[in-house]
C-alpha cells in the first residue's frame, strides 16, 4: 500500500476501502442558545466503502448494523441514503436527557433520508465528512428550530 501512487487519484479512489471510525461530533443548537457539543468515539465501527456498487456498510464488532448507498457528486460532495439505523451510530443519545426525544425523532427522519455531506478532508489515510442543517422539531403544535452540525472522522 505504501507504494501506491495517489497523484492521479480522485475522491472515488480515496473513498474505496475499509475505514475505521474515530469520532463523531454532533453540535446541537436551539434558537439563540449556546450549543451543546456531543462527541462520541466510533472506534468500534468499520465503514466498508464499495465504490463499484456505491454502498457503505457499517460494521460493529463483526456485525453489520447499517447499510446505505451513496452518490459522489464531485470531489467535495457526497450524498448518503441512510436507514432507520443510521442515527443509532451517528448520534449518541446516552448523555442527553430523555426529554430531548422529540429532537431525536426529528433527527431520525433526517438521518434516514438523503443527506449530502461536505468532504472536508479526504486522503489515503483520513476522511472527514460534515453537514449542517436546521431541523424543525415539532412539539405541542409549535416548532423549535434545532441546528445540527455533524462531523464524522474516519481513518484507514
Amino acid at each position, binding site marked *: 500500500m505504501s507504494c501506491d501512487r495517489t497523484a492521479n487519484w480522485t475522491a472515488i479512489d480515496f473513498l474505496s476501502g475499509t475505514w475505521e471510525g474515530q469520532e463523531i461530533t454532533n453540535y446541537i443548537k436551539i*434558537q439563540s442558545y449556546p450549543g451543546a457539543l*456531543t462527541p462520541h468515539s466510533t472506534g468500534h465501527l468499520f465503514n466498508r466503502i464499495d465504490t463499484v456498487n456505491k454502498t457503505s456498510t457499517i460494521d460493529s464488532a463483526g456485525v453489520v448494523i447499517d447499510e446505505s448507498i451513496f452518490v459522489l457528486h464531485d470531489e467535495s460532495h457526497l450524498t448518503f441514503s441512510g436507514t432507520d439505523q443510521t442515527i443509532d451510530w451517528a448520534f449518541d443519545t446516552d448523555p442527553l436527557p430523555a426529554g430531548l426525544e422529540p429532537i431525536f425523532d426529528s433527527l431520525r427522519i433526517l438521518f434516514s433520508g438523503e443527506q449530502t455531506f461536505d468532504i472536508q478532508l479526504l486522503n489515503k489515510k483520513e476522511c472527514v465528512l460534515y453537514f449542517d442543517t436546521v431541523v424543525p422539531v415539532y412539539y*405541542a403544535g409549535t416548532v423549535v428550530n434545532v441546528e445540527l452540525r455533524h462531523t464524522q472522522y474516519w481513518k484507514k
Partner: protein
Amino acid sequence: MIIKIPLLLCIGLALSSCFAIHPELQNAKSVNKGANSHSIGVYGGANVLVETYGVAGVYNYGLTDKVDWSTDGSFSVQASSLKRVFQGFGVNQYSLSTGPKFSMLNDHFALRLPATITFSAQELFLSASPTLLWDVIDEKTTLFLRYNRLYERNAIEGYSGDLVFGFNYFLPFYSNQLLLSIQSNGVGLYGGVGITL
C-alpha cells in the same frame, strides 16, 4: 403550551452548561486610584458532554480607591479531548466582560457588574455577569459566585443563564502571586492556574 414548557426546560438544562466556565483570577480587593493590576491563567475541565480547555485574563484599573474598572476575557475550546482540540474538531468560544467592581467591607468583599459578550459557533450572546467576590482566610482564598444572565429572551423559557461558583487559592510562594482556581456550574468541574501581576 403546558406540555411544551417542561420539554423546553429540559432542553435548557441539557444545554445550560455550554458557556465556557472561566476562572475569576482576582480577589475582592480593589487597586488604588490610578493603579492597575492584571492576571492571566489557563484552565480546563469537563462536564458530562465535553472537555473544555482555555486561557483567561483579567485587567483592573482603579477609578477610585474602592471602585475598579474590571475587564476580563477568555478563549476556550470544547472538544472530546485535548488531542481533538489540536486536530480542529473543537468548538471555539470567546468572551469579554467589562464593568465596575465595587470593593467594600475593608476590601474583603466585592461586587462586579460587568456586561459580557460571548461569541460561540458564529453567534453573539449578550449577557450581564454580576459576580460576588469574598476574600477569606487572610486573603489567601477568594470565594466567588457569578451569574451569567443572558440578555436576549428566546424560545426556551427554562433557560436564562449559568450560575458559577468557585474559589481561588493564592499559593504561598512566589509572593503569593500564583493562584489555583476551581469552579463549577453544577454540571461540570473546571480548574486552572494563574498568575497575578
